[in-house]
């Protein structure tokens, strides 16, 4: 009986010793982990001067498409241009349409324009997307950025953001035959038709903005800023990310009810 008791006691102390051992080990590992964490943090700070940001879960139901710089289509632009490439954007929109986990799409624009065909292609893709879309123009949404901005279900423009509406032009090229001018005119008409169809601006008003003189230093056209874009009927509302997200969530909810 006594022997048995002693045996248990020894076993107990051994176990606690083992526990102690593992506790020490754990503590050691933890301090090591902290050290490596600190060094990786330091590395990151060295690399970019910025640190970790909180992570979202993988299943975000709102995706975001940023369109920045030049919109690049048929022609590859020289590397000094920051570009948004057609072959990157179009498959992303297809993937968004197909993925049932994605409920809505936010388009963030800060573009100087670019290829007409590529810009109109992106606009048509967004306009025909079956999921709710909301766009925000931050900084600028110029030239071919205008049809992209208005292609969404609802469009916001930041108070300081601008949109330049001007005619399509060929710089440094002489129009040799009247047919070239007609071709140019038709191309411009496609932009005008798209914008007037997808926004509140009338064709007359839009063309007036497009051919206005005295507003731009080097060109004919108009530069509308924030509220002005809403007043002329091009955009829906002045706002930023908060209002855009709220609107998008509202559109998603409305769609789910129906």
């Amino acid at each position, binding site marked *: 009986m006594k022997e048995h008791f002693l045996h248990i006691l020894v076993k107990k102390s051994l176990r606690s010793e083992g526990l102690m051992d593992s506790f020490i080990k754990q503590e050691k590992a933890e301090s090591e982990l902290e050290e490596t964490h600190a060094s990786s943090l330091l590395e*990151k700070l060295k690399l970019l001067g910025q640190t970790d940001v*909180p992570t979202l879960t993988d299943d*975000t139901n709102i995706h975001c498409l940023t369109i920045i710089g030049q919109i690049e289509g048929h022609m590859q632009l020289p*590397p000094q241009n920051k570009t948004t490439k057609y072959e990157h954007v179009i498959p992303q929109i297809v*993937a968004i349409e197909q993925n049932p986990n994605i409920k809505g799409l936010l388009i963030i624009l800060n573009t100087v324009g*670019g290829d007409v065909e590529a810009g109109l292609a992106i606009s048509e893709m967004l306009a025909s997307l079956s999921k709710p879309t909301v766009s925000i123009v931050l900084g600028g949404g110029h030239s071919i950025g205008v049809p992209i901005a208005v292609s969404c279900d609802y469009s916001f423009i930041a108070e300081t953001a601008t949109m330049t509406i001007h005619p399509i032009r060929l710089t440094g090229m002489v129009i040799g035959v009247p047919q070239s001018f007609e071709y140019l005119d038709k191309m411009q008409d496609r932009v005008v038709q798209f914008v007037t169809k997808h926004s509140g601006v009338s064709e007359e008003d839009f063309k007036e903005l497009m051919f206005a003189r005295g507003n731009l230093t080097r060109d004919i056209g108009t530069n509308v800023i924030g509220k002005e874009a809403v007043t002329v009927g091009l955009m829906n509302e002045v706002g930023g990310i908060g209002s855009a997200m709220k609107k998008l969530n509202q559109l998603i909810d409305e769609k789910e009810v129906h």
Partner: protein
Amino acid sequence: MLYTIIPYESIYANQSELNLSNPTIEWVEHRGKWVQIEKKNEQKKIVRLISTNPSDYLANEYQPGSLFE
């Protein structure tokens, strides 16, 4: 045809003046995302990420400046 506010001469500016020491930059597809990487001395550094999933931009492995793979 370009429809942009940037003058053509700026878009097609003389390249030899602009990037004399351009490190090799290329686009690669990685787990369904487009990643632009800069190759320099056998090291691949992330320059730009293209994805519509906002959480990808928060992932540590895709932070610009970090090493690729």
